[in-house]
């Protein structure tokens, strides 16, 4: 179906760029097995200029995913392992006195990369967490009264252990809102797991693969995302979703205007990934569970509910106008 829509467009360059991204998606799918939807969401999140939160138990390939993203998209990569004794300066960098020049010199921290993996972000103290989140929000770091811009594109992938594990400082809701999406990886299917067991080491595979995109291409696509057309009818649908969360008493609080914008950007990125020039209700539906899952808290926490269930329930409650 979407091929038909694509046919109605004339922008060949656009198609070519998107084709490059599809190539990147294919490479990623070869490294991370059986997670096509999550990988597409990661790329969409990046193109929408948002940051990503991956929440899952250890060992399902969170770190590998982040590393693969950086590698295939041709981005510089740094990994920060968050621990309870990590200090803000360990992330942003420190000013060190230079004896020769008789002045302080700023040594940039690991945050100065295109893609930063903040591993187990909820193990650090709130103070350190907020240093990261401030940098995410402002795209810059201020040290000793001097402002240092972060490289563009700048993309944080934070991983988080489920909050019931011991030794964690759960991120407050206001900071969760800074992440455009939250995804879960989950266990691989049996066939995929078998392939994982038989196949090569993922790290070696990663080392062998070549970048399929560049920071420039990503930035270009980020600009293009905001121009993807959203019709009145689509905005009606988006607003009725948002209104539903505000009026309905199932939720502690409704979606914020920032969440509404995030939902629109993510949908636009998703549409662009499918080489469409307009957003469809299906685009909203595809990204919504990842965009609202960490922002909405149902009043009655049902035990054993799947993490995406909140989003799916919401979608089934709101008719498409």
């Amino acid at each position, binding site marked *: *179906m979407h091929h038909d829509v694509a046919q109605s467009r004339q922008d060949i360059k656009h198609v070519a760029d998107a084709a490059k991204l599809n190539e990147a998606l294919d490479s990623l799918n070869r490294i991370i097995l059986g997670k096509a939807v999550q990988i597409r969401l990661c790329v969409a999140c990046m193109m929408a200029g948002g940051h990503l939160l991956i929440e899952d138990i250890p060992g399902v390939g969170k770190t590998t995913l982040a590393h693969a993203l950086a590698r295939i998209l041709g981005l510089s990569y740094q990994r920060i392992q968050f621990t309870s004794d990590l200090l803000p300066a360990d992330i942003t960098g420190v000013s060190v006195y230079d004896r020769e020049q008789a002045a302080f010199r700023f040594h940039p921290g690991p945050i100065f990369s295109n893609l930063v993996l903040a591993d187990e972000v909820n193990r650090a103290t709130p103070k350190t967490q907020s240093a990261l989140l401030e940098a995410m929000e402002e795209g810059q770091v201020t040290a000793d009264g001097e402002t240092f811009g972060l490289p563009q594109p700048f993309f944080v992938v934070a991983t988080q252990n489920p909050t019931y594990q011991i030794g964690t400082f759960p991120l407050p809701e206001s900071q969760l809102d800074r992440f455009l999406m939250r995804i879960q990886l989950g266990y691989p299917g049996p066939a995929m797991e078998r392939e994982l067991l038989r196949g090569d080491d993922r790290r070696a595979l990663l080392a062998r693969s070549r970048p399929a995109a560049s920071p420039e291409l990503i930035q270009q696509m980020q600009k293009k995302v905001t121009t993807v057309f959203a*019709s009145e009818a689509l905005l009606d649908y988006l607003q009725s979703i948002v209104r539903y969360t505000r009026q309905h008493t199932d939720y502690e609080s409704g979606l914020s205007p920032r969440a509404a914008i995030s939902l629109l950007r993510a949908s636009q990125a998703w549409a662009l990934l499918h080489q469409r020039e307009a957003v*469809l209700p*299906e685009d909203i539906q595809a990204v919504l569970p990842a965009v609202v899952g960490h922002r909405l808290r149902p*009043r009655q926490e049902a035990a054993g509910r799947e993490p995406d269930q909140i989003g799916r329930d919401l979608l089934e409650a709101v008719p*498409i106008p």
Partner: protein
Amino acid sequence: MDNGSAQLERLGWSAAAIVVSVGPHLPRMPAWVSLLTLGCVAWRLAAAFRGWPTAWRWLRMILAGMVFVGVYMTYGTINGIEAGSALLIVMMDMKMLETARRRDFQVLMFICYFLVMAQMLFEPAMWTLAYMIVSVFVTTVALLQVVREAPPLPPREAGRLVSRMLVYATPLMLALFLLFPRIPGPFWAMPARSGSASTGLDDQMSPGSINALSLSDDVAFRVTFDGEAPPARLRYWRGPVFHQFDGASWREASRMPMWRSRVTPQGTPIRYRITLEPHDRPWLLALDYPESWSGVRGYLTFDYKLVARRPVEQLSSYEVISYPGAIVDPDISEWVRSWSLQLPEGRNPRTAALARRFRSQYASDRELVSAVLNRFSKEEFVYTLRPPSLIGAHPVDEFMFDTRRGFCEHYASSFAVLMRAVGIPARVVTGYQGGQFNPINGQLTVRQSDAHAWAEIWLPGEGWVRLDPTAAVAPERIERGLLDAVSTADAAPGLVFRRIPILQRLSESWDAIDSAWNEWVLGYGPDQQIALLRNFGVGNPDWRWLVAAMAGTLAALLAGLAAWLAWRYRPPRLDEVQRLYQSFLDRLQNSGLHREPWEGPVDFCHRAVKQKPAHEGAIRRITTSYVLLRYGPRRSQAELDRMRKLLGSFRP
């Protein structure tokens, strides 16, 4: 399904509703009912806070039995509105103890509604209505909170929702009030209350009894005159008439003759409507002499007293035509004559001696009467609200010769005694005199403080003649009312306030409002209902007509409300594109393929193609057109035409 805090909140709301609905009943209840209510609410809240288990089942059973017996022992019955409300309250307390599930809360709230209504049976006043509206609001909020599946709403939100519900309910309530068939008769009457203390005239009179009444500022009745109102000196409102005198007190004739009187119209009639406050006695007040009356079932006794068939326990309204110039009883029977001359042996000897002296001086009855009245006005008699008490065996003597300070009953009584002693038949009449016009609604308001006593004597050929010795002593009492006749220090506080103009104005406004409330709310009976419907051109509605009208009005109101809500929450108007797509969906629906409301067009297209592979091409093309037209950046007429054409030949 519940967490503790939601349950606590439900309990809190229920407790609030209980306090609001039971509160006004408690002053009427025995102390143990109040204590029980407080105890049960407090225990239930504490139990919820501390997580105590609910009281044991057998303990609750025993307690319920005990309170039942308690109510029975307090009132001697479990019937009647007082015992009934007490029983309702204590049973609600018992229910509170075991409240856990949603249904229990619901039952509790329904009892609260009942108690809110019961308040009107005790205090049918305007402020009760205001309080009832507040109580219904609180109870409805509580009901809303306790029956919700989801956790309770924030108070403001719940309040807004309930306000809206009550506003929607108001027209229905008004329709029910105005159109519910009002059938006259005891079936609709309020059950009698035991031991209520209404103020009003008594069935006997002794020195000081009217004096006590004159301290009350309560309204006795209100009068609307049809035509010109009679002047103050003619406004004698007749109440109980006394024939029997024991030396100190006056009573009604002990053997009441069974015959009824009739008044022959003579002179100019006065037409008026009286709205009488309940006073728990059968007599109805009327101007001398009532010829005919309507709106009440009553009769005229042999002494021209208008009496209802049952005690006046609710506000009653009736119309009377009186003839002040009528001559009544030009001849009287020996019976009446002997009652009207009866005096106890050996009492009040000095008065008897005075009477003998008068008799020897004047031969004509008329001259004798004016001589007696002269004596009252010329000699040192004082009209006062605080007469010295007469405690001796000869109270009339004491008053006539020693104290000479008295209120109307002293004058009326001693005058009648004097008349009887000289051989003129005489009796004492009590009632009200005067009244005050309210400039706002033109009504005459007669208060308890207007209570009065005067005398009637019988003269051959003239019949019964009214003579008011108070008029001889204090003419201003008759012309301008009690307030001008007595000193400020003597009068009731309510009376004194009326000397201040602004307070007078306020009091008049309040009186007008109160009167309208009486007439249109409390007194809204069959007559008012018919009068109201007549304004709308309905001739003579019977109860069948009323039931039909009520059902019709309710149905119309509900339909109107439904229509308004449907309009308010109407679906947005479909434009051409949506209409075409809807027809596409309708056709697929008819062939057994249903699109869920949340299903996007592309997803639905995939599903439809899978189920109807024969129409794959058409379904894809129509969906593409729809998506381009509805979500695409450009909306071309050509695409719309294409979609219309595709749809024209689409037959799944």
